[in-house]
Every structure is written in C-alpha cells, then in structure tokens.
C-alpha cells in the first residue's frame, strides 16, 4: 500500500482514538436512529409476511348440485384443475361436510340431530395461485365457474375479501407515508450528528490546513472516520433490533386469526442495505460539513 494511503489510514485511526468520546456519543445517537428505522422495517416485513399468510387462505368454494353423479363430479374436478388460476382442488362430500359442520359446532352439534336429511351440498375447494388472488380476478373466475353445468353456487367470501384487500391497501399507504417520514427523520438526525462531530473538530481541520495539508488529504481521514462511524452505528442499531426481536418476538405463536403465523427478523439483504446506508450517510455527512471548515 502506498505510504500516503497508510498515513491517511493511520491519521483516521489516531483521530478516532483521540476523539473516542465524541465518536461513541455520535455512534450511539446514529444507532438509535437506525434502531427506529429497523423497528419500522421489522414491522413492515412482518405485516408483509402476515398479508402473504392470509392471502394463502383465499379460496373458492364451488358447491355441486345434488343430482350430479360420480362421473359428472370427476369431470367437474378435471375441468376445475385445468383452470390456469387454480393451484389445488380438493373435494368434500356431503357426508364429510356434515361431519365437519358437527365438529365445528362442538357441544352444540345436537342441534343437527333433528334433521331428516343432510342439507349440505358436496363441494370443491379451490386454492388459487398467488398471481390470481386479486378480488377482481376472483370475481370473474367465480362468475365463469358459476355458469358451468352441475355447479350450484360459488362462494369466495366476497365482502370479507374486499374489506381485507382495502384494509391492506390502506395499511400499505400508511406504512409508505410513515416509512418515508422515518427515513427523512433518520437522515436528518444522522447528518446533524455528524455535523456536530465535525464541528467539534473544526480547530483541528483549521490547523491541518494552516500547516499546508491539501483539502483532499484533510478530507480522506474524516470521510473514513464518518464511514466507520456510520457503518458501526448501523450494525449497532441492527444488533439492538435483533436483541429486541429475540427477546420479544422470536418463536412466538399466536392464537386466533394469527394462528400459524411466526414473526420473522429482517432478511440479510435489508441488514446489508442498512449498513451501506450508514456508511454512505457517514461519508456524505463528513464531506458536506468539511467544506465550510476548509475555508482557512
């Protein structure tokens, strides 16, 4: 490595050691800002996963007319499976439907004792491919299947699905808005923290300039320090976030509508992006503030 590069690295190292207090306070503030951003990203990632989890449960129920015989039912099953939107077809006979209903009623299943005949129809349950889970597409598919011979009715819980989709749209809009505000606030906090760090060093920068150091030679160690501080703070923030996640969310299983959903941590790419953002903001913050101290 050329001697000058070594000198610049050494200068950055000795400045970090010499100003360790300022650097630590700065890094802690920046880490707190990254923790806030990380908490939001964690929430967003888990909401996204929850949305996918629920979307997988979207299905069409195709009720079969009672007069359809076995051959007709098999033909219908083949026709349904051939639909491009359909990922999986399963059949529930009238008897199975009654059994399921009884199980669902539990201790109230005695209500069904007085029935002379099974009133429940046989049905096909269609699971849809991810791309076919939009309300409009499901409605068209439902109308298409409804017109087929042997089909009594198609149900996909339209009112529930519509309110879920519009709720999801609202949540995504709000997340985008809040996320944007958090990113702005984080950038503001980080750039100001670095500005304060630099402000505490203005005398030193002035001295370097007065004894003949070029602007580039003054800038490089400070940029390296800013990058180290920003990167370390981002990793510190991500580490604190992981501890919070591990203590509060990891391996948690919820009952009710959240049943089957397991919270996740940020993926590796997002953590790498946070680190890169810390490094870039550190460099940019140092560079922008340096300019005014170099006018000596």
């Amino acid at each position, binding site marked *: 490595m050329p001697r000058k590069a070594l000198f610049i690295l050494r200068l950055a190292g000795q400045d970090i*050691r010499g100003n360790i207090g300022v650097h630590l306070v700065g890094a802690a503030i920046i880490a707190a800002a990254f923790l806030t951003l990380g908490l939001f990203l964690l929430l967003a990632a888990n909401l996204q996963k929850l949305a996918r989890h629920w979307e997988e449960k979207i299905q069409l129920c195709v009720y079969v007319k009672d007069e359809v015989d076995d051959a007709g039912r098999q033909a219908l099953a083949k026709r349904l499976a051939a639909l491009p939107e359909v990922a999986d077809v399963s059949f529930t006979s009238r008897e199975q439907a009654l059994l399921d209903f009884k199980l669902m009623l539990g201790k109230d299943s005695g209500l069904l004792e007085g029935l002379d005949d099974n009133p429940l129809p046989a049905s096909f349950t269609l699971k849809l491919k991810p791309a076919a889970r939009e309300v409009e597409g499901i409605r068209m598919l439902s109308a298409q299947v409804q017109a087929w011979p042997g089909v009594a009715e198609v149900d996909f819980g339209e009112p529930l699905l519509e309110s879920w989709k519009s709720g999801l749209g609202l949540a995504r809009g709000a997340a985008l808005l809040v996320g944007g505000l958090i990113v702005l606030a984080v950038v503001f906090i980080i750039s100001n923290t670095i500005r304060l760090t630099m402000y505490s060093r203005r005398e030193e920068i002035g001295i370097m300039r007065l004894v003949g150091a070029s602007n580039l030679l003054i800038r490089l160690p400070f940029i390296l320090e800013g990058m180290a501080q920003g990167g370390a703070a981002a990793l510190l923030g991500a580490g604190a976030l992981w501890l919070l996640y591990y203590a509060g969310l990891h391996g948690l299983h919820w009952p009710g509508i959240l049943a089957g959903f397991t919270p996740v941590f940020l993926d590796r790419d997002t953590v790498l992006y946070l680190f890169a953002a810390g490094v870039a903001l550190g460099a940019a913050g140092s560079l922008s503030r340096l300019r005014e101290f170099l006018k000596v």
Partner: protein
Amino acid sequence: MIELFHVCMRYGRDQQALTDINLKIDKGEFVFITGASGAGKTTLLKLLFAQEAPYTGQIMIDGKNVSHLKSREIPALRRRIGVVFQDFKLVHHWTVYQNVAFVLELSGMSGREIQRRVWQALKMVRLHHKMESYPLKLSGGEQQRVAIARAFIAEPAILLADEPTGNLDFDITQEIMKLFTEINIRGTTVVVATHDRALLESMSKRVIILDQGRIGSDGHDESSLIRAGRLARHGIGE
C-alpha cells in the same frame, strides 16, 4: 524573497486594516514587525501565508504572485512557509511527535527519515524527551517550542511568527528568540510580529513599525538608541 506592492486590506466595507503597504524583505533577513494593537501586524502575516487575500495590490514570494491564489494552490505555498502562532495551534489529541511529524508526512518522506528529522528538531528545541507527551500536558513555553519545531522541520524558506512570546515570561522569550536566530543563521528568512518593546530593544534587527495600517517607519542597521526613540515615537509598548 518577499515583496509587497501597494497592498491594501480591509475587512468588510468600512474596516481598513492595511493601507498602501510597500515592502521588501530579502532572503535570509530577520525582521520584526511591530505596532500598537490593531495596527495590522497579524493581517500582514496572514496575507503572506494566504490566510487572507489583499483587497488591492500584489504580494510576491520568491518571484511568484501569491495575492489571489486558488484554494488548491494554497497548500503548496504553506509547505514553503513555517508559521508560529501566539496560541500555538497544536492538535491536542496528537502527541508532540505526531504534531511535528505531520508536516513531513505531507511531503511523502520515508518513515525512517521522518523519525530522524523529528528527533533532531525536538532536540534542537530541547523537547526530545517529551516526544510521546500530549500538548496539554506541557507548559506554554514548551508548547510554543513544539510549534517552532513544527514550523522549521520542513526547512521552509520563510518562517513567520505572530506574537510568539505573547503569553510567555522573559526567560522563555529569550530562549525562543535564540531558536529563531539559529533558524535564521541556517538561511531561513524570519519575520516576527510582536509588540514587546523590551524584545525589540534587545535584538539588533530590522524593525518595521505599522501605524494604523500604514508603514510608520522602517529601520535597517540603526543604533539601539535610535531604535528606542523610533519605538517611543510610535508609542510601542507603552
């Protein structure tokens, strides 16, 4: 070596700091610049190492016009001029060694050569035993000697000192003046700004007196009696 032609300097619109300064300092000279507070001594030095640019007029150093240098041209000029400030201007979290060596690192000199030269320079100012100390652990006189070592270590053609003994007692002042004289004997042009009358009277050097931003008088090879009278006339050190 140093030439100023009709140099005027002002801060803002109203504050005239220097007016029509014409001055020539030859290579190897030792010159004092004196004057009452606000006479323009510090401004004149700042013009010489391009910390300020003149409002009008030209400044030549070694035949090169340095009146209006671009920001990127200034470091090269400053590496040829050593400067000693009244407030020392040492980086507090660097050791004495690191403060002095910094100037040589800028030139890309080898590590071994830097070590040798820093040791010699600190030995000359009698601080070689405090190489690893930090400036704030040193006395004012010691800090100023570190600043002097930093100013001459790169063997500059010119050494400027702005009130280098301003905060120091008589014995240390004499010691520092002895150092400047040694540096001057080695061929460096030395320009010292001071308002210390006792110091000016004790050394038989050229004394330029600034009076309200103008050159009040300039004396070469004058007797100490004449110099004392001249200083008294301009109210220096009263």
